[in-house]
């Protein structure tokens, strides 16, 4: 009973806040509406007994949206105060496409004869996840890790303005020519 009420409250929060992202006229509000939507989904994942994944969704998404807000302010190219913003194209087509998609997905969800439940959850789902990642599903871990490292490196390379050649000169032997020195005396 309690679980059902909490689920429905969180469902409403997730969907309403998700829609609010594209309705409200403030960058900060849009970003934090999305953060709330993610937190609500995180709670729902907790209700579906995936403790670790649920808490991780909340952790990561709040962090990501805090950073996202900075990018929003940086790239929206307008006064960060409350300004009306409607920067959309093909609004009608987009609305039609997403409505059609929702009808299709909803019909699928309701009409497909879902199979009955197979298997039983282990008593400690977090331990099960850890053991799966470190034994039978090790391949996932070994693939995701280099992808993550590659992402960090690629992200820095794409986004940084000055490469090490700009900092240290063509032979990489010069003194770093930084506008601001770092905190560890480089």
């Amino acid at each position: 009973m309690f679980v059902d009420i909490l689920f429905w409250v969180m469902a409403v929060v997730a969907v309403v806040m998700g829609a609010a992202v594209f309705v409200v006229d403030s960058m900060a509000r849009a970003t934090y509406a999305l953060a709330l939507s993610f937190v609500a989904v995180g709670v729902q994942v907790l209700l579906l007994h995936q403790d670790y994944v649920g808490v991780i969704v909340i952790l990561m998404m709040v962090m990501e949206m805090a950073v996202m807000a900075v990018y929003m302010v940086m790239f929206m190219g307008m006064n960060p105060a409350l300004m009306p913003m409607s920067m959309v194209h093909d609004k009608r087509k987009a609305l039609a496409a997403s409505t059609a998609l929702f009808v299709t997905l909803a019909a699928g969800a309701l009409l497909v004869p879902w199979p009955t439940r197979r298997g039983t959850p282990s008593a400690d789902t977090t331990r099960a996840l850890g053991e799966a990642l470190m034994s039978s599903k090790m391949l996932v871990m070994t693939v995701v890790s280099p992808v993550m490292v590659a992402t960090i490196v690629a992200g820095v390379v794409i986004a940084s303005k000055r490469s090490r050649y700009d900092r240290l000169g063509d032979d990489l032997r010069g003194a770093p020519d930084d506008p601001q020195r770092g905190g560890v005396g480089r």
Partner: protein
Amino acid sequence: MTPDAATSPLTLVPVGWVVLAGAIVLGLAWLAAIVDGVATSRSEASPAGLGRPLREVARLMRQRRRTTVEADTPLWRTGSSGLLVIATLMVIVVPLGSWTVFDPPVGVVWFNAMDVCVWALVWLTGWGPNSAHGLVGGYRFLAQALGYELPLMFALVAPPIAAHSLRVGDVATAQHGLWFVVWMPVAFLVYLIGVLGFSVWGPFSAAVGADVAGGVEAELSGLDRLLFLTGRYALIAAGAAFAVPMFLGGGAGPLLPGWLWVLVKTIVVLTALVLVRRRLPLLRPDLFMEVGWLWLLPAALAQVLIVSVVAAWRG
């Protein structure tokens, strides 16, 4: 959450006791304010440090709210009042002796998720009033958070590895005989740095620095200011309280009952953290970011590696 009390060494008390957890947080925040007030009075050679917090509360409760043009009031209020809520949500996973209000199987990750919420709340407090000083403060905090958060996460990873569990109660009971602080001092130190970081305190208070007219706090007044300041003290208190089951053996100790030991240890850590403000200079967030990534993160990772090897060797 899967409630399987059978595997937990703790007694789960009814949800209503969350009120007591909140009261303890407020009490500890009050204590922290008194400690800081006494220290301030001593350095200024002014009398009556004990009454400082009470006077300040009375003053702020009577103060009229200042408003700013085009302020984003809902976000602003969320930010300034949220810190206290987050501190309470952190404290409820800390077992008081053998009782706990909330004992999720991933309690350590829960604490981490809550401390990440501080990112959002401090930035929102800076953003809300539509003031340049506030926003500068908010950005400073995010830059600093990028520096302390990853080392903090890895510092929090070390005790659960040694305890083979993410449940806070298991971590506390796993250190009978030898507290984790003894053989993971680096993780403990990095953790304390993280606590100072998310409490915007001492060397990490650039976001509320005097050079930006109070930064995030610049436009806060009256009740909002009271809630924000209390929230900061409460966050230090919550960080100190969480250090007890993670590094300081939980309720273990001679003579006194477990719950009292938890409180005593919390108060000792809290006092040290509060007094550190007068001993250390302010760290600029942009400089600290490099310190965090080039020194603290490798140090925390090395600590985790050592702990993992020991844990694997013990079996």
